[in-house]
């Protein structure tokens, strides 16, 4: 099995477009393939497929509940909490947990010497499995609105991968911080989707830099080729980052995407390109035994 993440520093470069079309192409070629939408803040992949929701796995974290009868307002819990999630005013015997700031680390529970802290589960989001023709093919990570970080939901979705598949495609969240890192850390290879604009280049630099620090293998796809300028090409060449594919800017592609249609269904040449690209990656990086 090989895990391929499709990522981009900048949002809206066509990450989901590439991930859904590669997945679609491979499934049509009878390859056992799983698509995981790790963009838990804005998951969209499922909308491109006829897939049946088949269950729900709730992702929670433990947050403290304080028993004010037992609490002595000593302040140790607040001292232990690096997230400032505990507010305490001993003079008026007031203590409050700010659940939005809590990371569920459990330090306050350890800190309390009066047995005043118990914990309850608080929802962060859900992992939704989707089947097609009875086969589990798509997993969606979806963070609840108002939750601060999608990391736990993403981890939980990635944790559902079984050995049943030849290829797992991870549609990564944008940016280069924790949500992105969690996703690419679980991948054997990362495809960075960029566009030939100054914004695209700046964000590509940031994500390529992060992947280099992490010692990860990656290559780039330039989307909307033909617009913008040549600086991204120059950068890839200088940095010796393989250019895996160029996708030309076409109005038909934008239109198909806008209504939730897959271009690889109507454009056999594009499908052929994607299949070839996946094949090359598998050939080069597919035999590493998976550790993480």
């Amino acid at each position, binding site marked *: 099995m090989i895990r391929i993440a499709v990522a981009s520093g900048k949002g*809206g470069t066509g990450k989901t477009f590439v991930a859904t079309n590669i997945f679609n192409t491979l499934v049509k070629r009878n390859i056992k393939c799983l698509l995981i939408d790790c963009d838990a803040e*804005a998951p969209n992949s499922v909308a491109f497929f006829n897939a049946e929701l088949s269950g729900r796995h709730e992702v929670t*974290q433990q947050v403290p509940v304080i028993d004010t009868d037992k609490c002595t307002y000593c302040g140790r819990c607040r001292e232990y909490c690096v997230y400032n999630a505990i507010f305490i005013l001993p003079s008026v015997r007031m203590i409050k947990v700010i659940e939005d700031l809590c990371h569920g680390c*459990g330090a306050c529970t350890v800190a309390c010497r009066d047995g005043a802290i118990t914990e309850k589960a608080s929802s962060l989001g859900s992992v939704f499995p989707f089947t097609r023709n009875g086969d589990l093919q798509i997993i969606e990570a979806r963070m609840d609105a108002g939750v601060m970080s*999608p990391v736990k939901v993403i981890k939980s979705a990635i944790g559902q991968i079984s050995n049943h598949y030849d290829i797992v495609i991870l549609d990564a969240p944008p940016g280069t*911080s924790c949500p992105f890192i969690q996703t690419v850390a679980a991948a054997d290879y990362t495809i960075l989707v960029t566009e030939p604009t100054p914004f695209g280049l700046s964000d590509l630099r940031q994500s390529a830099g*992060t992947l280099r620090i992490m010692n990860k293998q990656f290559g780039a796809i330039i989307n909307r080729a033909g*617009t913008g300028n040549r600086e991204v090409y120059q950068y890839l060449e200088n940095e010796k980052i393989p250019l895996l594919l160029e996708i030309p800017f076409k109005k038909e592609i934008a239109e198909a995407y806008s209504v939730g249609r897959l271009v690889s269904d109507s454009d056999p040449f594009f499908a052929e390109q994607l299949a070839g690209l996946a094949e090359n990656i598998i050939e080069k990086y597919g035999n590493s035994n998976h550790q993480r």
Partner: protein
Amino acid sequence: MEIAIISGKGGTGKSSLSAAFATAGNEIVLADCDVDAANLYLIFNPVNEDEQVYIAGHKAIIDYDLCSGCRYCVDFCRFDAIGVANDKVVIDEISCDGCFLCSRICPENAISMIPNDKSRMFSGSFRKGKMVYGRLAPGEENSGKLVNMVREKARMISSENNLDIILLDGPAGIGCPVISTITGADRVILVTEPTVSGLSDMQRAVDVVLKFGRKPSVIVNKADINEQMTGKIIEWCHENNIGIAGILPFEKKIAEAMIRGLSIIEYEPECSVSIEIRKIWNNIIKSN
């Protein structure tokens, strides 16, 4: 007056539009809150006048001279960040949340916490006023706090320089840095596009904005890419009592302007999109 621009979905044109707004009227304070992928400095080339270190949390490290290998810390870590490899206790940097718990409970005092101190906040001047932006070092986390720091600095600069308007260019998504961008902002503008993803991401972003006690208004960008979907978005906004701040067509010149380091308003001040953007901006700053 603080005006936050967010989008839910990435790539809807949020930053290009922020650049246009920044150049549409009087001088302002421009705060780039997209600290993961700060881009506005590319257009505005600000002259930096101040640089501050931002501590993006901490990471645990083990001193193996002191570690007895008791594994006491392994059970306490809720982030699955401590494991055992080759009989040695090891910390997985990627999973470590920096909560300090392991360092507090270690019987040998073998774990210390080191700060992530490679992120920076810059502030200075650009051609239409003052600018503040954060740069999160690759792999560093806690961008919500950096956003707060950027906003605080922007407010300070705003009062020092008598620049009344602070424009906040927010990040994509609906998580912590977005929440930090909209909390307490006077106006929240949500830029979307007429695609299946644009609609669903906008709905989730509206949810979050309402949850944090703000009322967003929506700009549909690139509206002519799919007019039917644009209609759907407008209808949904009406049904949910969300105001429409403007509707803009797809304009190739916006990308051309960007490559030249200009906003569309500077590049083609009299084109129809520029005229429309100025109108939208004037409505936004008047309606307070």
